[in-house]
């Protein structure tokens, strides 16, 4: 595969060798141009650590991450990040939030607002340009964050559970929006998630991670027809993928739960 993003034998240890924790252990995969790949795993499997390493916010202890051969040692201009937590700037209205990356590029106000409106329309927030983030719902605020990242025109859209805080219906509908955008822009996307339905709904490939230390346990190619919408969730094929991934994840999630119980017991 001719990968745009390549992750090779990447590990991350926290603390010392003797007393530390290995969050991510020798993870390798690639993402091709225009592909939508999801990384799924139980809580505590190192998904977010992987997200921060690919985004260049955290250094890998071992291994190499590169974009077309250009090693990532700091945030890379080809990668646009969407964070799990709500990340709109509360002092800026919607259009100024989305125009933020363009403002940094020194683009004139009128031009950057015009460009920002294009991405605001794309995420379905037409008419909310002058609203403050505090006037929007959680789902709308995450769409503002996505539009802001898209405005920087990244070659790779890297998202860390962007809809984690939202209810299931909103997640499915926003999934439709992401699919629509991805198809419209042929946007190469890497999604970190713990939602099986979200991963199957959106992805070309799904990488299942094991519980700590996080390793790639299995790769699943999702062979559902495109263009896809949330209607696909009722199809038998969709259900089969969900059941198959859940079989893998159940074991890992049980390990995660047991580890959390042990921590609680020792703390008490």
């Amino acid at each position, binding site marked *: 595969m001719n990968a745009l993003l390549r992750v090779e034998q990447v590990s991350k240890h926290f603390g010392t060798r003797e007393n530390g924790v290995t969050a991510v252990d020798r993870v390798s995969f690639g993402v091709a141009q225009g592909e939508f790949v999801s990384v799924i795993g139980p809580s505590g499997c190192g998904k977010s650590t992987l997200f921060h390493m690919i*985004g*260049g*916010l955290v250094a890998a202890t071992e291994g190499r991450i590169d974009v077309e051969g250009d090693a990532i040692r*700091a*945030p890379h*201009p080809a*990668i*646009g*990040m969407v*964070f799990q*937590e*709500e*990340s709109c*700037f509360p*002092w*800026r209205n919607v259009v100024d939030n989305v125009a*933020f*990356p363009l403002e*940094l590029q020194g683009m004139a106000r009128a031009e950057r607002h015009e460009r920002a409106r294009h991405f605001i329309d794309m995420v379905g927030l037409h008419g909310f340009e002058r609203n403050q983030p505090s006037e929007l719902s959680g789902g709308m605020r995450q769409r503002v964050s996505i539009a*802001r990242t898209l405005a*920087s025109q990244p070659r790779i859209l890297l998202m860390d559970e962007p809809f984690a805080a939202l209810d299931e219906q909103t997640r499915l509908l926003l999934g439709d929006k992401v699919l629509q955008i991805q198809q419209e822009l042929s946007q190469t996307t890497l999604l970190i998630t713990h939602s099986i339905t979200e991963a199957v709904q959106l992805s070309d490939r799904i990488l299942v991670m094991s519980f700590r230390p996080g390793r790639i346990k299995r790769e699943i190619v999702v062979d559902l027809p495109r263009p896809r919408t949330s209607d696909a969730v009722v199809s038998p094929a969709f259900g089969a993928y969900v059941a198959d991934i859940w079989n893998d994840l159940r074991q890992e999630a049980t390990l995660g739960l047991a580890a959390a119980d042990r921590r609680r017991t020792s703390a008490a």
Partner: protein
Amino acid sequence: MRFAAPLSGIMVLLALGGLLQFAIQMDFISVYVLPLPSDILASLPRLVAEEGVLGRFATTAGETLAAGLLALLVGLPMGLLLHRSLRMRAAFEPWVAALAAAPLILAYPLFLVLFGRSPATIVVIGFISALPPVVLKTIEGFAATRRVLLNVGRSLRLTPGQEFRKILFPAAIPQIFVGLRLALVFGLINVVGVEFLINLGGLGQLINDLAERYDLPGTWGGILCVVLVSIAFFTVLDGCERWLRRRA
């Protein structure tokens, strides 16, 4: 609707004034303890015409403004420095907090020796008393900036200067302005107090003079003018905060 809250505040004040007027007229409160609110209001034209209250208002406001600006110019970089360096913060933050509790005004003879019986003494005491809230609230504002907002900036490869101007400072503006409001209150109290004690300058000196003449309505009128200085500063600060947040 925009003016509903301020209007209701004014209505409550007027009602309280009416209640006091009634209580004093009924002799529930002695007129030698608290003059009639109507007499206090009636004293204001006299204070303007005979006591030069407008000039004194400007003097006190100017001294307080100078103290506040100095506190801002010194306190903002100091707060940023203490926020950036954990070691310096651990070393100095308790001392800054302790300074906030110190009754500095009692040390006015020392400042008189250093700066003479001049506005400099008043401004310096105002400045030192206004400094701790600016420093402490600036640290609090910068420290409370959400990690994810800084990560957005890092992912967009902001320079340290851009990170400060575009994220850290705007995020800290509400706390910095809380510090500034407190600074102006502390500064104003100390400015008026020193004016009163050294019998120099603006409204503090006027209140001293009127109290010595047993002009109780005038004294309370002078105190009302001090409150007006405070209201003027709060109004201007509100405008500045809104303007800055729009520009950020």
